[in-house]
């Protein structure tokens, strides 16, 4: 707890810088990730991330220093090369994109590992710390490194804001962008460059291996909360930033822990939470919606039954017993009772002893369901030429879903009919 307060009071200047740095790194890669995700090239980021390693090692071997600028240039060169290679392989041979990505990813990373271990075994004292690139270490970002990478992150964000319109169109409809004279090729290059830069700065936080998560996961999570791209970018950045802070905190409290996996774990939990619980698109929301549909179907079926019985006996306001209802249509008894009780609470039916009576409201709603049912049956026979004995089942569903506007259209197209295909009156 004390550590928690110590960290989040941000009293220590060092903590302030590290936090700021992690937030910038994580959010800038999340923002760029949104565009690669929408372009359906999410996994390309994974290949770039792995391909950065040989660049870093080569830069170290050639320069002999760990100057962040030089390492960054090395990383940039091989990251870029990996993307060019993927494009080259897919366009010039019959190898498909997923294979090309897997190939470039594993081979570049293999070369990186070979170089890295070779450097480690060489006994060069300056090398220690290079392996931080594998799993990231937010808290060790200090001084020169921090300034360099933060500047790049800010630049990335600025470029995205500047080219927002163009990038959006590129992801949404490349062909259209081309026809209205956008330099699509150049924009692709821009997005590629942005991806490489995002990876290069992002690996400071989570490392090479899990970098793909920083590009893909915040974007995939944000996608579930909104249909608006600007909001999505903002949300992805926030999710990235939050996990960045969390990573810096883990790095601070438990220096032995690898930071990257913790950041990824947190961001993944946010994403899975979003997949499950986001309103609208989330899995639970959809289950709930389906449940609501089922209740609505049950309630309307009960009202319909009461109405039909009333129609039969030409008396809508006499009470009917449950068995009378279930005789006409088999509904599990428990379900029927709980449905009726709910209808009573909503004021559609009244209860006396063991019997149920429609209220005027209930009669109105029951009548509407019966009307829609018969209208739809008529529509199916007239427009789809279905046999009269085949339309009932379909109408059983559709009667619950037709909106008032569609009802109006239906009446117009059917020319305000009186009878359904079974010669029953349409109320």
């Amino acid at each position, binding site marked *: 707890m004390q550590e928690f307060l110590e960290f989040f009071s941000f009293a220590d200047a060092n903590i302030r810088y590290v936090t700021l740095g992690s937030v910038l790194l994580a959010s800038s890669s999340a923002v760029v990730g949104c565009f690669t995700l929408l372009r359906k090239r999410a996994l390309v980021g994974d290949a770039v991330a792995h391909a950065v390693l040989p660049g870093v090692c080569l830069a170290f071997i050639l320069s002999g220093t760990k100057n962040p600028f030089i390492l960054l240039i090395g990383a940039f060169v091989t990251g870029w090369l990996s993307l060019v290679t993927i494009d080259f392989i897919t366009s010039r041979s*019959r190898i498909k994109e997923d294979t090309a990505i897997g190939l470039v990813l594993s081979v570049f990373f293999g070369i990186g590992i070979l170089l890295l271990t070779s450097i480690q075994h060489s006994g060069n004292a300056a090398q220690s710390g290079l392996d931080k690139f594998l799993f990231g270490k937010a808290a060790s970002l200090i001084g020169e490194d921090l300034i360099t990478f933060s500047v790049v992150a800010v630049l990335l964000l600025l470029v995205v804001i500047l080219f927002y319109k163009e990038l959006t169109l590129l992801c949404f409809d490349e062909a259209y962008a081309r026809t209205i004279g956008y330099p699509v090729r150049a924009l692709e290059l821009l997005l590629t460059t942005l991806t490489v830069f995002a990876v290069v700065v992002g690996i400071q936080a989570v490392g090479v291996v899990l970098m793909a998560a920083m590009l893909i996961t915040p974007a995939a999570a944000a996608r579930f909360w909104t249909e608006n791209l600007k909001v999505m970018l903002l949300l992805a950045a926030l999710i990235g930033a939050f996990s960045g802070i969390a990573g810096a905190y883990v790095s601070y409290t438990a220096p032995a822990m690898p930071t990257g996996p913790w950041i990824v774990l947190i961001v993944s939990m946010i994403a899975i939470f979003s997949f499950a619980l986001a309103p609208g698109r989330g899995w639970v929301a959809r289950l709930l919606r389906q449940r609501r549909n089922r209740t609505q179907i049950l309630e309307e079926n009960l009202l319909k039954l009461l109405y039909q019985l009333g129609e039969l006996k030409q008396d809508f306001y006499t009470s009917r017993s449950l068995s009378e209802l279930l005789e006409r249509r088999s509904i599990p008894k428990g379900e029927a009772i709980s449905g009726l009780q709910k209808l009573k609470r909503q004021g559609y039916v009244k209860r006396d002893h063991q019997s149920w009576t429609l209220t005027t409201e209930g009669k109105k709603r029951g009548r509407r369901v019966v009307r829609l049912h018969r209208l739809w049956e008529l529509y199916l026979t007239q*427009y789809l030429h279905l046999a009269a004995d085949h339309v009932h089942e379909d109408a059983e*569903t559709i009667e619950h879903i037709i909106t008032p506007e569609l009802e109006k259209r239906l009446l117009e197209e059917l020319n305000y009919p009186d009878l359904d295909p079974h010669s029953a009156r349409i109320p």
Partner: protein
Amino acid sequence: MILQVDNPVVEVHDLTVSYDRKPVLWGIDLTLPAGALVGVIGPNGAGKSTLIKAMMSLLPISSGYVRIFDQPLKQVYNRISYVPQRESVDWDFPASVFDVVLMGRYGNMGLFKRPRKADKDAAMEALEKVGMQSFANRQISQLSGGQQQRVFLARALAQNADIYFMDEPFAGVDIATETAIIQLLRQMRDQGKTVIVVHHDLQSASEYFDWVVLLNMRLVASGPTDKVLTQELLEQTYGGKLTLLSKVGDLLRRQEFPARETKVK
């Protein structure tokens, strides 16, 4: 004009098929006679491929049932053959023409069994029928569109089934191939096989088929060619979209409504 036949080879009853909850075919009731060359015709997006795929249980159905030879599909797999759309597979696949044709025999071979001489002979014979015997060892990546279609046809022939479903076998093939294919289909019909073909060209339809099914989200007509290919029925098929129908379909998808109150078994 929807003619139902007695002792049908294919019986489709109240079939509704949905993609992502939106019905693309509504309440199809259809019976097809044995030994006929049947054309399934309709505009783009009418659900022609969907219909034959649903007949073979390649797609989940929302309501209704399909019976073939008066039995559920599971019991008659070995009497059914399918010629998918040419573009549905990767022709860069490392396989020879003969490999592909031999696949037609897999269904009858059973698990773990390897192809025997009889299977190889049947495959070769099928290749001869489509005039491709000299291509047996050719790699499939080196075939032209028409040749690819012939190979697919040979694969189906090798199966020696009783009913054939073909998805656009005439799409993008040269005239020579088209003529060869239609002659072959006629021979098959004359041997008492039933051939159901998804077709998009109205001009040739009247000449090719003896039975035509007109489709546009719902069944418009089904019957002998000369009775079905009338101005009026074609207008019903190609003209006038049923906007109400697709609006209701959209609603079903958006609200995640079940296509039927009770699930089909």
